């Protein structure tokens, strides 16, 4: 049942967008002139393409995010069973996760030390 509902919700979102677009197309005015098709800038024609190379800092943070996000994904299953298993396997669970967190923190510390967290 939940998968049916999940598909229903996604379809609802799609219907909302398509429906509003269709209404707008039907009742909205239609006209064209070349100035309308230009990108919105200060008034004079745009020079060059906007798809140009971006600051490398963005990329650096994206890579860092990827690393940490994959690591935090592994925390979810552990967090779910921690409360119920900590009575019997408390020591082992604590040790294993502190070791895991140590790796995570060392990664952050390394990135910090290397200056990856500075915006240059």
């Amino acid at each position, binding site marked *: 049942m939940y998968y049916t509902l999940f598909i229903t919700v996604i379809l609802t979102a799609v219907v909302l967008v398509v429906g509003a677009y269709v209404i707008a197309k039907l009742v909205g005015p239609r006209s064209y002139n070349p100035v309308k*098709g230009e*990108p919105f800038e200060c008034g004079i024609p745009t020079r060059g393409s906007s798809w140009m190379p971006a600051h490398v800092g963005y990329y650096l943070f994206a890579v860092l995010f990827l690393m940490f996000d994959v690591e935090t994904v592994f925390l979810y299953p552990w967090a779910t069973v921690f409360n119920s298993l900590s009575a019997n396997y408390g020591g082992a669970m604590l040790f294993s996760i502190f070791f895991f967190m140590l790796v995570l923190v060392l990664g952050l510390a390394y990135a910090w030390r290397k200056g990856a967290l500075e915006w240059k």
Partner: protein
Amino acid sequence: MEKVYILSSLPQMFDSLLRDTCGLSNFWAVLIECVLVGLLVLAAYATLAIILIFMERKVCAYFQCRIGPMRVGPWGTLQVIADVLKMLIKEIFFVDRSDKLLYCIAPFLVIIASVGTFSFLPWSQGWNVLDFNVGIFLLTAISSIGVIGIFMAGWASNNKYSVVSAMRGAVQLISYEMSLGLCLISAVILTGTMQISGIVEAQTGPWQWLIFQGHIPAILAFLVFCIAGNAEANRGPFDLAEAESELTAGYHTEYSGMGFGFFYLAEYLNLFVVSGIATTVFLGGWAPVNIGIAAFDSVMDYIPGIVWFLGKTFVVVFLLMWIRWTFPRLRIDQILKLEWKYLMPLSLCIIVLMVICVSFGLTFTING
């Protein structure tokens, strides 16, 4: 023993009405229920968007010693409806050299992320639309689709402002997802379940809201969640992606009419979803205020869960609006510094604190 709250069996009653009283087969019953759920989600989504936009305008006006919209309808109440109608009848047009395909897909992704997360909210006992056993995890997964939508919109517009805004938006949203996820993990450690309804069930009873149960780490996690959630909803002081004084309107500069409307809708609904998740996870969701005195508790239990949920959520919404209209906008380096050098280590500390609290039995509980 599981306590049953008022109105919690309404969905089951409707289901048995279709199946037993009307004698429909499984297929038709499910179909009718799915259509109804879709309509309800749409209605709630649209209504809440209108209420939130109106609320934001009034709140912002009073914070700035103005009176806000007053002309359309009594006390300006119909202003937002007039705005929505205006947006609907505007022309939709493209920039000539934009990437048309990505430009059209972007609003879909943003709205799917927003409606998808919206459907996870627990309105009352048994009133969840989506209630997977991996709820919290799926929630964070769906919410990150929105980043792709925003980046796509900015990139496809072929406008220099939009591209800069898309870059800023993407790096900000993915950064703040980190501490958002870590705070949710700290709540999962305490409740031992990722299912949204399970998390709320764990908070029913006297002083059982996670913010009381988990005391210091939970309160810290709530604060970090509010800050990161504010950034995740792209709202001030973190509204770098649409800093109107430098980037005109950011990633939705080139969207006209309803195309812009979708981003606007999603922004306000994301505010509501973030507040709703903060309420669900830390402030007890639909769980009523119980203080351990039987007479007081039973009176509180008579108030339906949806009233509690909406009440608490709107308190958090007001808090986030207050933050938005009080603090000046941060720069991109300050935003990233705040996340990676302060909130990230802090949320890791919160997890460690929470683990210590849970494993040594230091959580706050009242037996009885």
